[in-house]
C-alpha cells in the first residue's frame, strides 16, 4: 500500500526528476560511481587488461602491513594535512574576520589579494623557482647575497627542508572557497547584535568574536571545514611540482601520490582503489569529528 503511494507521488512529481536529470546523470557517473567502483575494486586484483579477480582484504592487508612507502605517505599526508588543514582553516577564518574590520574599499582589495593564489591555479609552480636548489633560486641567491649561507641549500632535495617547503606552498594555496564563505558569513552577522553586545558588556574584539560572531557562523564554519578536508587530504600536486615524483627518499610522498603511482603508472587498479577507499573513510571520519567539535564552539 505504502509503496504504491510513493510511486504515485513520484509520478505526480515527475517534473522534479526531469529538472534534476541532467545534473544527476553527470553527478552519478563522475562522482558517485567512481566512489562505488573504488570500494568494489579495492577487494580485487585488477590490471585493466584482464577481468578483476576478487581477493578479499588482501589489498588492505598489504597496504597496512607490507607497504612501508604507503605508511610513509600516510605520515607525510597527515603532517601536511594537520598543518595546512586546521592551521589554514583557522587562519582563513581569522583573516576573514580581520578583513571585516577594515573599510569597504580596502576590504575588496584584501579579499582579492588573499584569494588570488586560488584564482591563479598553476602559478604555484613559481615557488619551485623561488626554492630552486641552484644559485638561480631566489631564496638561495638572496640568502647568500646577505652572507647568511656559503653554499646553496637544497630546499627541494634535502630531506631536512622538503616538508617545510611543501607546507609553506600548501598554506599559500589554502585560502579557497572556505575563506570566501567566512568573509561572507562575518559580513552577514547582524549589526544590531554587535551593538547589543557592546551594551551588554563585551569589552574587546576577542569577546565579540567568541560570544557573538562565532555562534552565528557555525554553518559557514562547517562548510569551510569540508573544503579544508577536501584539499588537505588531496595534497600531492604540490609535492610533485616542487620535489618531483617520486621525491627524494619519498620525503614528501603523499597518499594521493601513492595512489597515482599505482593507478596511472603501474596499472594496479585494485591496490590503487584500496588506497582511495582508505582516503574516503578518513575524510568522512574527519568531517564527523569536526562536526562534533564545532557543536562545542562559542
Amino acid at each position, binding site marked *: 500500500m505504502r509503496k504504491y503511494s510513493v510511486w504515485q507521488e513520484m509520478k505526480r512529481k515527475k517534473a*522534479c526528476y526531469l529538472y534534476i536529470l541532467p545534473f544527476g546523470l553527470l553527478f552519478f557517473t*563522475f562522482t558517485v560511481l567512481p*566512489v562505488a567502483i573504488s570500494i568494489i575494486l579495492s577487494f580485487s586484483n585488477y590490471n585493466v587488461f584482464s577481468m578483476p579477480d576478487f581477493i578479499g582484504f588482501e589489498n588492505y592487508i598489504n597496504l597496512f602491513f607490507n607497504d612501508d612507502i604507503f605508511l610513509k605517505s600516510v605520515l607525510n599526508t597527515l603532517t601536511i594535512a594537520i598543518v595546512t588543514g586546521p592551521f589554514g582553516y583557522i587562519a582563513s577564518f581569522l583573516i576573514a574576520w580581520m578583513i571585516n574590520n577594515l573599510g569597504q574599499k580596502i576590504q575588496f582589495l584584501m579579499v582579492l589579494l588573499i584569494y*588570488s593564489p586560488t584564482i591563479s591555479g598553476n602559478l604555484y609552480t613559481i615557488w619551485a623557482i*623561488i626554492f630552486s636548489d641552484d644559485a638561480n633560486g631566489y631564496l638561495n641567491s638572496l640568502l647568500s647575497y646577505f652572507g647568511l649561507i656559503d653554499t646553496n641549500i637544497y630546499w627541494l632535495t634535502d630531506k631536512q627542508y622538503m616538508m617545510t617547503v611543501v607546507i609553506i606552498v600548501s598554506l599559500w594555496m589554502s585560502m579557497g572557497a572556505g575563506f570566501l564563505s567566512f568573509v561572507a558569513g562575518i559580513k552577514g552577522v547582524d549589526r544590531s547584535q554587535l551593538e547589543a553586545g557592546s551594551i551588554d558588556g563585551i569589552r574587546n574584539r576577542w569577546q565579540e568574536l567568541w560570544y557573538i560572531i562565532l555562534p552565528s557562523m557555525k554553518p559557514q564554519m562547517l562548510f569551510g571545514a569540508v573544503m579544508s578536508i577536501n*584539499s588537505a587530504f588531496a595534497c600531492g600536486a604540490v609535492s610533485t611540482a616542487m620535489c618531483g615524483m617520486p621525491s627524494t627518499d619519498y620525503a614528501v610522498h603523499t597518499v594521493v601520490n601513492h595512489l*597515482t603511482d599505482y593507478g596511472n603508472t603501474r596499472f594496479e*587498479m585494485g591496490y590503487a582503489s584500496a588506497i582511495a577507499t582508505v582516503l574516503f573513510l578518513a575524510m568522512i571520519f574527519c568531517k564527523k569529528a569536526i562536526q562534533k567539535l564545532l557543536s562545542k564552539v562559542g
Partner: protein
Amino acid sequence: MADKKQFSQKFSHSKGGNFLNFFILVVVAVFMVIPFVFTVGNAFKPLDEQFLYPPSILPKVPTFQNFLSVSSLMRESWVPFSRYMFNSVFITVVGTFFHVIVSSLGAYAVAKFEFPGRKLFFELVVVSLLFNSAVTAIPNYLIMSKLGMIDTLWAIILPAIGSSLGFFLMKQFIEQMIPDAMIEAAQIDGAAGWTIFMKIVMPIVKPAWLTLIIFSFQNLWNTAGGSFIFNENLKTLPHAMSNIVAGGVARTGSAAAVALIMVIPPVVVFVLSQSNVIETMGSSGLKE
C-alpha cells in the same frame, strides 16, 4: 550625533588592536602576492637581467621581448599555439555555461520541491564535497575509457558540468533567496513550471550564477588535461606552459610571460564578480 556603528566599535575595538589588525593583514597579503610579483618582474626582464646577481625583483630595462619570444617559441612547437588556446577557451566556456544551467535546474527542484529521494540526493551531494577529483581520478579513468571519452575534451568538460560544489551553492542560495510564496503566487497566476524557473528564479539568483561561473572558470581554465588526454592536439594552455617551463632556465622569461597571460582572465572575472560571490557565499553554510 555619533553614528551607531562607531558607538559599538569605540568600546570593543582598541586603536592599537586596529593597527595590529591592519599590520598582520598587510604581511599576509605580501606573502600571498610574492609569486605574482616575481612573475610580473620576470615577464618584463630582458634575458641578461634574468640571472643577475643579486637578483632584482623589478626589471631595470623593461622589455616586451619575452612576450614576443613566446609567439616564436609557439610557432616552432609541434602543435600551433592557437590550438592550445582554442582547447582551453572551448572547455572553459562550454563547461562553465552548462555547469551553470544544469546546476541551477537541479538545485531549483531540490531547494523548492518535496519529492521522494530529495533528501538522500542532497546528502550525497554534501558528502561528495569532501572528495577531491584527485582522489576519484583512477575509477574516473576506467569510466572514461568505457565511455570512449579518453582523448576527447568531453573527459574534462562533463565531470566539471556535474561538479557538486556549484550545485550545492546554488541550492543553498535559491533556498534562502526565493520565498515559497513567490513560486506559489506564480503558480496561481497560471505560470508553467518552466516559465517560473526562467522568468522568476533565474533572474533572482544572478549573484549565484556569477559565483558558479568564477569557480568553474578557475577550475577549467587551469586544467592541464591530466590523465584523460594524451593527444597533443587536445592539450590546453597550462600544458603548453609547462612545456615552456620544461625548456630550461633560459626560458624563465617566456614562462613568466605565459603565466601572466594565463592569470589575467580569471582575475578579471573575479574582480568583476567579487561582491556577488560574497553575497552568494553568505548562504553557503552547512546546517546540521
